[in-house]
């Protein structure tokens, strides 16, 4: 805390004294999420020792000509919110950097966020809702001597809590704009090459059968011509110890990994179609081997999101697929060496004035996703496998989505969704069972006046097993552009155990003015996964009052 205040004061005084000079920019943001966990007897909740908890982030920057310096302080008092990484503890300086940038070079010292290609080998990002901040602390250079060539080089150690790991990360990435070199007018073509190395000496294994440094390579191509586009990336990770369970680095199970991602599509005005195929084999990649499969996404090196539709409705977010890049040969019923599958999206706009479009048009969005465990030969108890390149093993997840948006007139707009899911909990979560669901959702927005509106959502989920049926409703009243209030309830009325037929209700309000948003909520949190961008965090059931605030300046 003292350190933060000290740094703040320095920044503040520098900023204030430099006020008269032109071109000096001072800016940043503040975010605070607090929760007061209340005690309830009817929910299966363990009351935490510190019932009032708060996660806070203050980000300050100073910019002068090509130079930018920034510092982020974070405060988790008395503790971080439930099920955040316990390494986020108390108050301290979290990240800082100094950056110089002009048209050809971009140099950063300190903490930075970088992504090569689609992130399958390396991505650093921040997601406060998930408690992810895997920035590297070190140096980065980005060199763009001409329009068609970019070179990146990074070195660093990865952030974990308020500290960094003991391992070293190296990376370099080249990108060539082929269409710029050959001055192609209507076609875009580029290729990229990456290398990422992770150097970690295993002190727990005196004579390892694998190298300290794991080398990973990737090549990618990107193409677009008129309405058509396609891209592909292939990644290879050198032989390394397989980690089937957290903290268990095996010296006898050594395998390489690889990934293939292919995307193509076509779109024109009013129509779009897009298809993605991905195959992951043993692609879990952490800056420290033992961190593999930790529940907080701590020390994660690469970005392996589940490629499915990101659901917007509450009930469609109960059975969420999570990508399965890792290896686990638990027994003959759970044989995982990765995943294979894909998804297809289709968007269509029924024109205004057509039979289905009506006066204001109708918009249709379809999505189909299908994911399987990687097929092949698995050897137990010896622990080994040989995968088939296009081997589709057991089905893990399938989903069909239909979404129709319709504007009826200036006042009324509505949306209908139907979702059908197949969720193999045994393979995805390594628990048991297969859940099949159907979800129906409808929502309508009605504008009373130019600035006053109401949004009402009704949802129902039919599930054949697990917690079975749910019903949910939300009403949100936008009183004016600054104030909104809402109430919602999710009711697990179909649960076989009458004790577990819980309501998860929430009421709250939000106030917004310019860059500030403040929201207050009272209610209950359903236990389960909170997912952002295909990466998830488990949250326990809880009830209480939450206050969140964010602003920029």
């Amino acid at each position, binding site marked *: 805390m003292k350190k*933060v205040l000290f740094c*703040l*004061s320095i920044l503040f005084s520098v*900023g204030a004294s430099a006020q008269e000079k032109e071109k000096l920019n001072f*800016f*940043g943001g*503040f*975010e605070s999420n607090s929760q007061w966990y209340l005690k309830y007897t009817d929910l299966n909740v363990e009351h935490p020792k510190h019932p009032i908890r708060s996660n806070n982030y*203050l980000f*300050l920057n100073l910019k002068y000509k090509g130079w930018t310096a920034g510092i982020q302080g974070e405060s988790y008092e008395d503790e971080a919110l439930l099920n955040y990484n316990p390494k986020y503890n108390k108050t301290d300086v979290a990240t800082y950097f100094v950056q110089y*940038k*002009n048209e050809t070079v971009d140099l950063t010292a300190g903490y930075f*966020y970088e*992504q090569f290609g*689609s*992130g399958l080998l390396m991505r650093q*990002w*921040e997601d406060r809702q998930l408690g992810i901040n895997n920035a590297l602390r070190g140096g980065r250079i980005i060199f763009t001597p001409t*329009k068609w060539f970019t070179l990146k080089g990074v070195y660093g150690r990865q952030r974990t809590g308020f500290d960094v790991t003991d391992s070293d990360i190296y990376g370099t990435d080249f990108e060539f704009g082929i269409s710029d070199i050959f001055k192609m007018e209507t076609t875009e073509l*580029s290729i990229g090459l990456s290398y990422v190395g992770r150097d970690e000496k295993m002190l727990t294994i005196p004579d390892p059968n694998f190298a300290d440094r794991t080398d990973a390579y990737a090549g990618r191509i990107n193409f677009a011509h008129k309405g058509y586009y396609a891209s592909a990336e292939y990644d290879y990770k050198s032989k390394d110890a397989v980690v089937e369970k957290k903290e268990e680095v095996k010296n006898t199970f050594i395998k390489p990994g690889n990934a293939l991602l292919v995307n193509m*599509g*076509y*779109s*024109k*005005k*009013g*129509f*779009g*179609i*897009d298809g993605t195929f991905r195959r992951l084999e043993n692609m879990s990649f952490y800056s420290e081997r033992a961190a593999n499969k930790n529940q907080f996404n701590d020390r994660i090196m690469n*970005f392996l*999101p*589940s*490629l499915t539709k*990101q659901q*917007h409705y509450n009930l469609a977010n109960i059975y969420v697929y999570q990508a399965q890049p890792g290896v686990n040969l638990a027994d003959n019923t759970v044989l995982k060496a990765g995943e294979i599958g894909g998804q297809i*999206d*289709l*968007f269509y706009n029924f024109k205004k004035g057509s039979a289905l479009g009506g006066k204001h048009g109708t*918009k249709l*969005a379809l999505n189909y996703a299908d994911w399987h465990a990687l097929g092949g030969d698995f050897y137990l108890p010896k622990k080994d496998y040989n995968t088939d390149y296009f081997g589709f093993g057991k089905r893990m997840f399938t989903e069909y989505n239909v979404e129709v948006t319709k504007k009826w007139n200036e006042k009324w*707009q509505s*949306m209908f969704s139907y979702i059908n899911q197949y969720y193999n909990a045994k393979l995805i979560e390594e628990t048991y069972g297969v859940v099949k669901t159907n979800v129906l959702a409808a929502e309508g*927005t009605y*504008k009373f*006046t*130019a*600035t006053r*509106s109401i949004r009402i959502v009704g949802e129902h989920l039919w599930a054949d097993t697990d917690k079975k049926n749910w019903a949910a409703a939300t009403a949100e009243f*936008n009183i*004016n*552009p600054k104030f909104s209030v809402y109430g919602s309830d999710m009711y697990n009325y179909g649960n076989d155990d009458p004790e577990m037929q819980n309501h998860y209700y929430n009421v709250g309000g*939000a106030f*917004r003015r*310019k*860059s*500030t948003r403040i929201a207050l909520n009272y209610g209950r949190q359903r236990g389960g996964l909170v997912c952002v961008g295909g990466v998830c965090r488990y949250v326990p059931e809880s009830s209480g009052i939450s206050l969140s605030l*964010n602003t*920029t*300046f």
Partner: protein
Amino acid sequence: MKKIQLLLLFVGFNLFAQKELPNLSLNNLDGKSVSLKTEFAEKDKIYIFSFWATWCTPCIQELDEMNDVQEEWKKSVNFEIVAIATDDSRTQKRVKPLINGKGWDFKVLLDTNQDFKRYLSIVNIPYTIVVKNQQIVHIQNGYVPGNENELLAKLKSL
């Protein structure tokens, strides 16, 4: 007590905060790099940067609405809408077909690793900034139906 000190400090910053667009280049939908510094620099023209994502329903509502009204607005204000897709590589491939499927008529840039979003300390989307002569002159955090009317009034006053 320390928290109050912190708050006071940060209120202090507010007093002399002035933000300009970062020197950042983002790819457009064709994969061509577009510089925020040079591309959006027409004198006195207003640029509306709207941060959104394919999975964010209120964002899409807002952009649908803006798409419907922009022709009308352009009669009275010299402005341009730029949609900043904050989709990461999970959903980024959906941006192009969605935009064409929707028939939106504005420039779209891809903020794939959220450098632009992070630079502006944006916590939640939809989030809209209004830029004139490279300076951020107005911010709208969130969207509810009707916000576009407020925004138009603001644009006219700039």
